[in-house]
Protein backbone atom coordinates (compact mmCIF):
# COMPACT_ATOMS: atom_id res chain seq x y z
CA UNK A 1 0.00 0.00 0.00
CA UNK A 2 1.30 3.44 -0.90
CA UNK A 3 2.29 5.49 2.13
CA UNK A 4 0.98 9.02 2.52
CA UNK A 5 3.70 11.58 1.86
CA UNK A 6 4.88 14.25 4.29
CA UNK A 7 6.37 17.03 2.18
CA UNK A 8 8.27 20.02 3.55
CA UNK A 9 8.09 22.96 1.17
CA UNK A 10 11.09 25.21 0.89
CA UNK A 11 10.34 28.63 -0.54
CA UNK A 12 13.44 29.88 -2.32
CA UNK A 13 14.30 33.49 -2.98
CA UNK A 14 17.63 34.48 -4.51
CA UNK A 15 19.08 31.08 -3.65
CA UNK A 16 18.02 31.12 0.04
CA UNK A 17 15.11 29.44 1.82
CA UNK A 18 12.54 31.92 3.13
CA UNK A 19 9.06 31.70 4.60
CA UNK A 20 6.37 34.35 4.90
CA UNK A 21 2.91 34.49 6.40
CA UNK A 22 0.10 34.73 3.89
CA UNK A 23 2.71 35.15 1.18
CA UNK A 24 4.17 38.33 2.78
CA UNK A 25 7.01 39.33 5.10
CA UNK A 26 9.49 36.70 4.07
CA UNK A 27 12.05 35.68 6.67
CA UNK A 28 15.25 33.77 5.91
CA UNK A 29 15.20 30.16 7.09
CA UNK A 30 18.65 28.98 6.02
CA UNK A 31 20.83 27.28 3.44
CA UNK A 32 19.01 25.16 0.85
CA UNK A 33 21.27 22.10 0.87
CA UNK A 34 21.56 22.02 4.68
CA UNK A 35 17.80 22.14 5.10
CA UNK A 36 17.23 19.57 2.34
CA UNK A 37 19.69 17.15 3.95
CA UNK A 38 18.13 17.70 7.37
CA UNK A 39 14.66 16.87 6.08
CA UNK A 40 15.94 13.80 4.22
CA UNK A 41 17.52 12.52 7.45
CA UNK A 42 14.33 13.20 9.41
CA UNK A 43 12.29 11.04 7.03
CA UNK A 44 10.61 13.57 4.75
CA UNK A 45 9.11 11.62 1.83
CA UNK A 46 9.69 14.29 -0.76
CA UNK A 47 10.66 17.96 -0.95
CA UNK A 48 9.21 20.83 -2.93
CA UNK A 49 11.35 23.85 -3.76
CA UNK A 50 9.33 26.82 -4.80
CA UNK A 51 11.21 29.73 -6.37
CA UNK A 52 8.82 32.46 -5.26
CA UNK A 53 10.53 35.23 -7.20
CA UNK A 54 10.82 33.48 -10.56
CA UNK A 55 7.27 33.73 -11.88
CA UNK A 56 6.38 37.34 -10.96
CA UNK A 57 9.74 38.54 -12.31
CA UNK A 58 9.14 36.56 -15.53
CA UNK A 59 12.48 34.80 -15.21
CA UNK A 60 13.11 31.07 -14.96
CA UNK A 61 14.52 29.17 -12.06
CA UNK A 62 18.28 29.08 -11.43
CA UNK A 63 19.54 25.50 -11.93
CA UNK A 64 22.79 25.81 -9.96
CA UNK A 65 21.22 25.10 -6.56
CA UNK A 66 19.07 22.32 -8.06
CA UNK A 67 22.23 20.45 -9.02
CA UNK A 68 23.64 20.93 -5.51
CA UNK A 69 20.44 19.54 -3.96
CA UNK A 70 20.42 16.57 -6.37
CA UNK A 71 24.00 15.68 -5.42
CA UNK A 72 23.19 15.84 -1.72
CA UNK A 73 19.89 14.00 -1.25
CA UNK A 74 18.44 10.62 -2.24
CA UNK A 75 14.72 11.32 -1.97
CA UNK A 76 12.56 12.81 -4.73
CA UNK A 77 12.13 16.54 -5.07
CA UNK A 78 10.03 18.86 -7.16
CA UNK A 79 10.94 22.34 -8.38
CA UNK A 80 8.36 25.05 -8.96
CA UNK A 81 8.66 28.62 -10.12
CA UNK A 82 8.94 30.22 -13.51
CA UNK A 83 9.00 27.04 -15.61
CA UNK A 84 7.25 28.28 -18.72
CA UNK A 85 8.59 26.11 -21.56
CA UNK A 86 9.99 22.67 -22.41
CA UNK A 87 13.56 23.98 -22.60
CA UNK A 88 13.52 25.34 -19.05
CA UNK A 89 11.79 22.20 -17.75
CA UNK A 90 14.48 20.06 -19.36
CA UNK A 91 17.23 22.11 -17.70
CA UNK A 92 15.56 21.71 -14.30
CA UNK A 93 15.04 17.96 -14.74
CA UNK A 94 18.55 17.43 -16.10
CA UNK A 95 19.93 19.29 -13.09
CA UNK A 96 18.41 16.50 -11.01
CA UNK A 97 14.83 17.47 -10.09
CA UNK A 98 12.34 14.59 -10.30
CA UNK A 99 9.30 16.69 -11.03
CA UNK A 100 8.44 20.16 -12.21
CA UNK A 101 5.48 22.08 -10.92
CA UNK A 102 3.78 24.68 -13.06
CA UNK A 103 1.30 27.22 -11.78
CA UNK A 104 1.17 30.78 -13.17
CA UNK A 105 2.69 29.89 -16.58
CA UNK A 106 0.07 27.14 -17.03
CA UNK A 107 -2.65 29.71 -16.41
CA UNK A 108 -1.06 31.98 -19.03
CA UNK A 109 -0.89 29.13 -21.52
CA UNK A 110 -2.66 25.89 -20.49
CA UNK A 111 -1.18 23.90 -23.38
CA UNK A 112 2.17 24.09 -21.53
CA UNK A 113 0.99 21.17 -19.35
CA UNK A 114 0.36 19.00 -22.42
CA UNK A 115 3.73 19.91 -23.94
CA UNK A 116 5.57 18.99 -20.74
CA UNK A 117 3.63 15.73 -20.34
CA UNK A 118 4.32 14.73 -23.94
CA UNK A 119 8.03 15.45 -23.57
CA UNK A 120 8.76 14.09 -20.08
CA UNK A 121 5.71 12.01 -19.13
CA UNK A 122 2.81 12.95 -16.85
CA UNK A 123 4.64 11.58 -13.82
CA UNK A 124 7.04 14.57 -14.02
CA UNK A 125 4.37 17.22 -14.35
CA UNK A 126 2.73 18.68 -11.26
CA UNK A 127 0.02 21.33 -11.48
CA UNK A 128 0.33 23.79 -8.62
CA UNK A 129 -2.95 25.56 -7.95
CA UNK A 130 -3.43 28.55 -5.63
CA UNK A 131 -7.08 28.72 -4.71
CA UNK A 132 -9.03 31.30 -2.73
CA UNK A 133 -12.60 31.39 -1.43
CA UNK A 134 -14.87 34.05 -2.93
CA UNK A 135 -18.28 33.82 -1.33
CA UNK A 136 -19.49 30.31 -2.10
CA UNK A 137 -17.01 29.92 -4.98
CA UNK A 138 -13.39 28.84 -5.15
CA UNK A 139 -11.24 30.81 -7.58
CA UNK A 140 -7.68 30.42 -8.85
CA UNK A 141 -5.01 33.08 -8.28
CA UNK A 142 -1.91 33.77 -10.38
CA UNK A 143 1.53 35.24 -9.48
CA UNK A 144 0.88 34.69 -5.78
CA UNK A 145 4.61 34.86 -5.04
CA UNK A 146 4.36 38.64 -5.28
CA UNK A 147 1.23 40.11 -3.63
CA UNK A 148 1.61 43.39 -5.54
CA UNK A 149 1.39 41.60 -8.89
CA UNK A 150 -1.15 38.91 -8.03
CA UNK A 151 -3.66 38.31 -10.82
CA UNK A 152 -7.19 36.93 -10.94
CA UNK A 153 -7.19 34.76 -14.08
CA UNK A 154 -11.00 34.41 -13.89
CA UNK A 155 -11.01 30.68 -13.38
CA UNK A 156 -13.03 28.45 -11.10
CA UNK A 157 -10.80 26.10 -9.06
CA UNK A 158 -12.79 22.92 -9.78
CA UNK A 159 -12.87 23.58 -13.52
CA UNK A 160 -9.12 24.19 -13.51
CA UNK A 161 -8.53 20.96 -11.53
CA UNK A 162 -10.40 19.03 -14.22
CA UNK A 163 -8.64 20.81 -17.05
CA UNK A 164 -5.07 20.24 -15.79
CA UNK A 165 -5.81 16.51 -15.49
CA UNK A 166 -7.21 16.41 -19.01
CA UNK A 167 -4.08 18.21 -20.27
CA UNK A 168 -1.82 15.60 -18.66
CA UNK A 169 -0.78 16.72 -15.16
CA UNK A 170 0.32 13.70 -13.12
CA UNK A 171 -0.21 15.29 -9.71
CA UNK A 172 -1.98 18.31 -8.22
CA UNK A 173 -0.79 20.43 -5.31
CA UNK A 174 -3.73 22.46 -4.06
CA UNK A 175 -2.69 25.44 -1.99
CA UNK A 176 -5.66 26.81 -0.11
CA UNK A 177 -4.71 30.47 0.27
CA UNK A 178 -7.23 31.31 2.98
CA UNK A 179 -5.59 28.88 5.37
CA UNK A 180 -1.98 29.30 4.20
CA UNK A 181 0.44 30.45 6.86
CA UNK A 182 -2.14 30.77 9.63
CA UNK A 183 -1.67 27.27 11.07
CA UNK A 184 -5.34 26.64 11.83
CA UNK A 185 -5.68 23.46 9.77
CA UNK A 186 -6.02 22.43 6.14
CA UNK A 187 -9.15 23.49 4.22
CA UNK A 188 -10.86 20.10 4.52
CA UNK A 189 -14.06 21.17 2.80
CA UNK A 190 -12.28 22.45 -0.28
CA UNK A 191 -9.84 19.50 -0.42
CA UNK A 192 -12.69 16.97 -0.18
CA UNK A 193 -14.44 18.62 -3.08
CA UNK A 194 -11.29 18.60 -5.18
CA UNK A 195 -10.54 15.00 -4.17
CA UNK A 196 -13.91 13.97 -5.58
CA UNK A 197 -12.88 15.12 -9.08
CA UNK A 198 -9.15 14.31 -8.89
CA UNK A 199 -7.93 10.94 -10.22
CA UNK A 200 -4.21 11.77 -9.96
CA UNK A 201 -2.36 12.13 -6.64
CA UNK A 202 -3.53 15.18 -4.67
CA UNK A 203 -1.29 17.04 -2.24
CA UNK A 204 -2.82 19.33 0.40
CA UNK A 205 -1.08 22.63 1.07
CA UNK A 206 -1.78 25.53 3.38
CA UNK A 207 -2.78 25.57 7.03
CA UNK A 208 -0.75 22.90 8.84
CA UNK A 209 -0.27 23.95 12.47
CA UNK A 210 -0.51 20.77 14.54
CA UNK A 211 -0.16 16.99 14.09
CA UNK A 212 -3.96 16.68 14.34
CA UNK A 213 -4.31 18.75 11.16
CA UNK A 214 -2.35 16.11 9.22
CA UNK A 215 -4.46 13.27 10.62
CA UNK A 216 -7.61 15.20 9.75
CA UNK A 217 -6.58 15.88 6.14
CA UNK A 218 -5.55 12.27 5.48
CA UNK A 219 -8.68 10.82 7.11
CA UNK A 220 -11.27 13.30 5.91
CA UNK A 221 -9.97 14.52 2.56
CA UNK A 222 -8.16 11.31 1.49
CA UNK A 223 -5.21 13.26 0.09
CA UNK A 224 -2.01 11.46 -0.97
CA UNK A 225 0.35 13.86 0.72
CA UNK A 226 0.46 16.95 2.88
CA UNK A 227 2.79 19.85 2.34
CA UNK A 228 3.88 22.33 4.97
CA UNK A 229 6.67 24.78 5.63
CA UNK A 230 6.57 26.83 8.83
CA UNK A 231 5.75 24.01 11.24
CA UNK A 232 8.72 22.03 9.95
CA UNK A 233 11.20 24.89 9.54
CA UNK A 234 10.46 26.21 13.04
CA UNK A 235 10.78 22.78 14.65
CA UNK A 236 7.19 23.04 15.96
CA UNK A 237 6.50 19.62 14.41
CA UNK A 238 9.30 17.05 14.12
CA UNK A 239 8.75 14.78 11.11
CA UNK A 240 9.77 11.51 12.85
CA UNK A 241 7.33 12.21 15.70
CA UNK A 242 4.57 13.21 13.28
CA UNK A 243 4.97 10.05 11.21
CA UNK A 244 5.12 7.79 14.26
CA UNK A 245 1.98 9.40 15.67
CA UNK A 246 0.12 9.17 12.34
CA UNK A 247 1.16 5.52 12.13
CA UNK A 248 -0.34 4.81 15.57
CA UNK A 249 -3.49 6.55 14.40
CA UNK A 250 -3.88 4.13 11.50
CA UNK A 251 -2.38 6.19 8.66
CA UNK A 252 0.19 4.30 6.54
CA UNK A 253 3.46 6.24 6.56
CA UNK A 254 7.01 5.40 5.57
CA UNK A 255 7.69 5.32 9.26
CA UNK A 256 11.01 3.55 9.64
CA UNK A 257 13.94 5.88 10.02
CA UNK A 258 15.77 6.24 6.68
CA UNK A 259 18.98 5.97 8.72
CA UNK A 260 18.09 2.47 9.90
CA UNK A 261 19.29 0.64 6.79
Amino acid sequence: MVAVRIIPCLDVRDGRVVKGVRFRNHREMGNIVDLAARYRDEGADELVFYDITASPQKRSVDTEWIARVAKAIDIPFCVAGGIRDVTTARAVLHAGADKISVNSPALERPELIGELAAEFGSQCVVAGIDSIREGDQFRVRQYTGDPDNMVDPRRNTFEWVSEVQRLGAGEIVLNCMDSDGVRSGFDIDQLRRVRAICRVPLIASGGAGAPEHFLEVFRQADVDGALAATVFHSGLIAIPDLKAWLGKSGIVTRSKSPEAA
Partner: protein
Amino acid sequence: MLVSIVVIDTGGANLASVVHAVHRLGAECSLTSRAERIRSGSRVILPGVGSAGTAMAALREAGLVEVIRSLTQPVLGICLGLQLLYERSEEGDTECLELIPGTVSKLEVPDRLRLPHMGWNQLHWTVPQDPLARGVDADDWYYFVHSFAAPTEHAIATCEHGRPFAAIVRKDNFSACQFHPEKSASAGTRILANFLESQP
Protein backbone atom coordinates in the same frame (compact mmCIF):
# COMPACT_ATOMS: atom_id res chain seq x y z
CA MET B 1 34.47 0.09 -4.84
CA LEU B 2 34.28 -1.07 -8.47
CA VAL B 3 35.45 0.60 -11.64
CA SER B 4 33.81 1.65 -14.89
CA ILE B 5 30.13 1.87 -14.06
CA VAL B 6 28.35 3.02 -17.21
CA VAL B 7 24.96 4.74 -17.26
CA ILE B 8 23.37 4.55 -20.71
CA ASP B 9 22.32 8.01 -21.88
CA THR B 10 18.74 7.40 -22.99
CA GLY B 11 18.01 11.12 -23.13
CA GLY B 12 15.68 10.69 -20.16
CA ALA B 13 15.40 13.17 -17.36
CA ASN B 14 16.59 11.32 -14.23
CA LEU B 15 20.08 10.57 -15.50
CA ALA B 16 21.86 13.03 -13.20
CA SER B 17 20.25 11.45 -10.14
CA VAL B 18 21.47 7.98 -11.09
CA VAL B 19 25.01 9.26 -11.64
CA HIS B 20 24.94 11.14 -8.30
CA ALA B 21 23.73 8.00 -6.49
CA VAL B 22 26.61 5.91 -7.90
CA HIS B 23 29.05 8.66 -6.92
CA ARG B 24 27.67 8.71 -3.36
CA LEU B 25 28.60 5.01 -3.17
CA GLY B 26 32.17 5.96 -3.97
CA ALA B 27 32.23 4.46 -7.46
CA GLU B 28 33.32 6.03 -10.73
CA CYS B 29 30.55 6.44 -13.22
CA SER B 30 30.15 7.76 -16.72
CA LEU B 31 27.10 8.71 -18.73
CA THR B 32 27.35 7.70 -22.37
CA SER B 33 25.49 6.60 -25.48
CA ARG B 34 28.64 5.28 -27.20
CA ALA B 35 28.51 1.56 -27.94
CA GLU B 36 32.16 0.77 -27.20
CA ARG B 37 32.02 2.56 -23.82
CA ILE B 38 28.86 0.66 -22.89
CA ARG B 39 30.36 -2.70 -23.93
CA SER B 40 33.47 -2.04 -21.85
CA GLY B 41 31.61 -1.11 -18.62
CA SER B 42 31.97 -3.58 -15.78
CA ARG B 43 28.40 -2.72 -14.74
CA VAL B 44 25.78 -1.09 -16.94
CA ILE B 45 22.74 0.88 -15.78
CA LEU B 46 19.79 1.47 -18.12
CA PRO B 47 17.69 4.30 -16.67
CA GLY B 48 14.73 5.94 -18.30
CA VAL B 49 11.91 8.34 -17.66
CA GLY B 50 9.35 9.18 -20.29
CA SER B 51 7.48 6.95 -22.68
CA ALA B 52 8.48 3.51 -23.96
CA GLY B 53 8.15 4.63 -27.59
CA THR B 54 10.40 7.67 -27.19
CA ALA B 55 13.03 5.71 -25.26
CA MET B 56 13.13 2.82 -27.78
CA ALA B 57 13.34 5.31 -30.67
CA ALA B 58 16.31 6.96 -28.94
CA LEU B 59 18.04 3.58 -28.42
CA ARG B 60 17.43 2.61 -32.07
CA GLU B 61 18.72 5.92 -33.36
CA ALA B 62 21.87 5.55 -31.26
CA GLY B 63 22.31 1.98 -32.59
CA LEU B 64 22.11 0.57 -29.06
CA VAL B 65 19.40 -2.09 -29.32
CA GLU B 66 21.76 -4.91 -30.34
CA VAL B 67 24.50 -3.52 -28.09
CA ILE B 68 22.28 -3.83 -25.00
CA ARG B 69 20.95 -7.25 -26.04
CA SER B 70 24.49 -8.61 -26.35
CA LEU B 71 25.80 -7.37 -22.98
CA THR B 72 27.14 -10.10 -20.70
CA GLN B 73 28.13 -8.00 -17.66
CA PRO B 74 25.58 -7.21 -14.89
CA VAL B 75 22.94 -4.77 -16.18
CA LEU B 76 20.42 -2.88 -14.02
CA GLY B 77 17.34 -1.28 -15.57
CA ILE B 78 15.58 1.44 -13.59
CA CYS B 79 11.88 2.37 -13.91
CA LEU B 80 11.21 2.60 -17.67
CA GLY B 81 14.54 0.77 -18.00
CA LEU B 82 12.82 -2.27 -16.47
CA GLN B 83 9.90 -2.07 -18.87
CA LEU B 84 12.22 -1.81 -21.90
CA LEU B 85 13.70 -5.24 -21.10
CA TYR B 86 10.39 -6.94 -21.97
CA GLU B 87 9.15 -8.03 -25.39
CA ARG B 88 6.76 -5.16 -25.78
CA SER B 89 4.90 -2.40 -24.00
CA GLU B 90 1.27 -1.46 -24.47
CA GLU B 91 2.42 2.14 -24.01
CA GLY B 92 2.29 3.34 -27.61
CA ASP B 93 2.28 -0.36 -28.67
CA THR B 94 6.08 -0.41 -28.61
CA GLU B 95 8.44 -3.25 -29.46
CA CYS B 96 11.05 -3.34 -26.72
CA LEU B 97 14.37 -5.14 -26.14
CA GLU B 98 12.86 -8.68 -25.91
CA LEU B 99 15.27 -9.79 -23.21
CA ILE B 100 12.48 -10.93 -20.88
CA PRO B 101 9.29 -12.63 -22.15
CA GLY B 102 6.06 -10.76 -21.50
CA THR B 103 4.18 -7.55 -22.15
CA VAL B 104 4.16 -4.37 -20.09
CA SER B 105 0.63 -3.06 -19.60
CA LYS B 106 -1.15 -0.15 -17.99
CA LEU B 107 -2.08 -0.42 -14.32
CA GLU B 108 -5.85 -0.48 -13.84
CA VAL B 109 -6.90 0.85 -10.47
CA PRO B 110 -10.19 1.07 -8.57
CA ASP B 111 -11.57 4.50 -7.62
CA ARG B 112 -9.83 4.60 -4.24
CA LEU B 113 -6.37 4.33 -5.83
CA ARG B 114 -4.56 6.89 -7.96
CA LEU B 115 -2.63 6.80 -11.22
CA PRO B 116 0.28 7.32 -11.63
CA HIS B 117 1.36 4.95 -8.84
CA MET B 118 3.40 7.69 -7.18
CA GLY B 119 5.03 7.44 -3.79
CA TRP B 120 6.64 5.02 -1.34
CA ASN B 121 5.60 1.38 -1.30
CA GLN B 122 6.87 -1.95 0.05
CA LEU B 123 8.03 -5.13 -1.66
CA HIS B 124 7.17 -8.79 -1.42
CA TRP B 125 10.38 -10.73 -2.04
CA THR B 126 9.63 -13.89 -4.02
CA VAL B 127 13.33 -14.77 -4.36
CA PRO B 128 14.80 -13.47 -1.08
CA GLN B 129 18.10 -15.26 -1.71
CA ASP B 130 18.81 -13.04 -4.76
CA PRO B 131 22.05 -11.03 -4.38
CA LEU B 132 20.08 -7.77 -4.76
CA ALA B 133 18.19 -8.67 -1.55
CA ARG B 134 21.32 -8.86 0.60
CA GLY B 135 20.95 -6.79 3.76
CA VAL B 136 17.49 -5.42 2.95
CA ASP B 137 14.68 -5.41 5.49
CA ALA B 138 11.35 -6.93 4.49
CA ASP B 139 9.54 -3.74 5.53
CA ASP B 140 11.79 -1.29 3.65
CA TRP B 141 10.08 1.37 1.51
CA TYR B 142 10.93 2.29 -2.10
CA TYR B 143 9.90 5.24 -4.27
CA PHE B 144 7.75 4.43 -7.32
CA VAL B 145 6.50 6.68 -10.13
CA HIS B 146 4.81 4.88 -13.02
CA SER B 147 1.53 4.08 -14.76
CA PHE B 148 2.62 0.99 -16.72
CA ALA B 149 3.95 -2.19 -15.14
CA ALA B 150 5.39 -5.61 -15.96
CA PRO B 151 3.87 -9.02 -15.12
CA THR B 152 5.14 -10.88 -12.05
CA GLU B 153 6.80 -13.79 -13.91
CA HIS B 154 10.59 -13.36 -13.60
CA ALA B 155 10.06 -11.04 -10.63
CA ILE B 156 12.31 -11.55 -7.64
CA ALA B 157 10.23 -8.99 -5.76
CA THR B 158 6.69 -7.81 -6.43
CA CYS B 159 4.66 -4.79 -5.42
CA GLU B 160 0.93 -4.15 -5.65
CA HIS B 161 -1.14 -1.19 -6.85
CA GLY B 162 -4.49 -2.31 -8.19
CA ARG B 163 -2.77 -5.56 -9.20
CA PRO B 164 0.53 -7.25 -8.37
CA PHE B 165 3.40 -6.28 -10.68
CA ALA B 166 7.14 -6.81 -10.97
CA ALA B 167 9.09 -4.52 -8.62
CA ILE B 168 12.46 -6.19 -9.26
CA VAL B 169 13.16 -8.66 -12.07
CA ARG B 170 16.13 -10.79 -12.96
CA LYS B 171 16.94 -12.85 -16.04
CA ASP B 172 20.53 -14.02 -16.42
CA ASN B 173 22.80 -10.94 -16.16
CA PHE B 174 19.86 -8.53 -16.57
CA SER B 175 18.13 -7.19 -13.47
CA ALA B 176 15.87 -4.18 -13.08
CA CYS B 177 13.83 -2.18 -10.56
CA GLN B 178 10.47 -0.56 -11.27
CA PHE B 179 11.09 1.84 -8.36
CA HIS B 180 13.88 4.42 -8.26
CA PRO B 181 16.69 3.07 -6.05
CA GLU B 182 18.53 6.39 -6.50
CA LYS B 183 15.55 8.18 -4.88
CA SER B 184 14.66 5.61 -2.22
CA ALA B 185 16.90 6.87 0.59
CA SER B 186 18.95 4.22 2.44
CA ALA B 187 16.80 1.30 1.25
CA GLY B 188 17.45 2.16 -2.39
CA THR B 189 21.13 2.77 -1.76
CA ARG B 190 21.35 -0.80 -0.40
CA ILE B 191 19.91 -2.19 -3.66
CA LEU B 192 22.30 -0.10 -5.78
CA ALA B 193 25.26 -1.15 -3.64
CA ASN B 194 24.22 -4.80 -4.01
CA PHE B 195 24.11 -4.35 -7.78
CA LEU B 196 27.55 -2.71 -7.90
CA GLU B 197 28.95 -5.57 -5.81
CA SER B 198 27.23 -8.30 -7.84
CA GLN B 199 29.41 -10.89 -9.55
CA PRO B 200 29.41 -11.09 -13.37
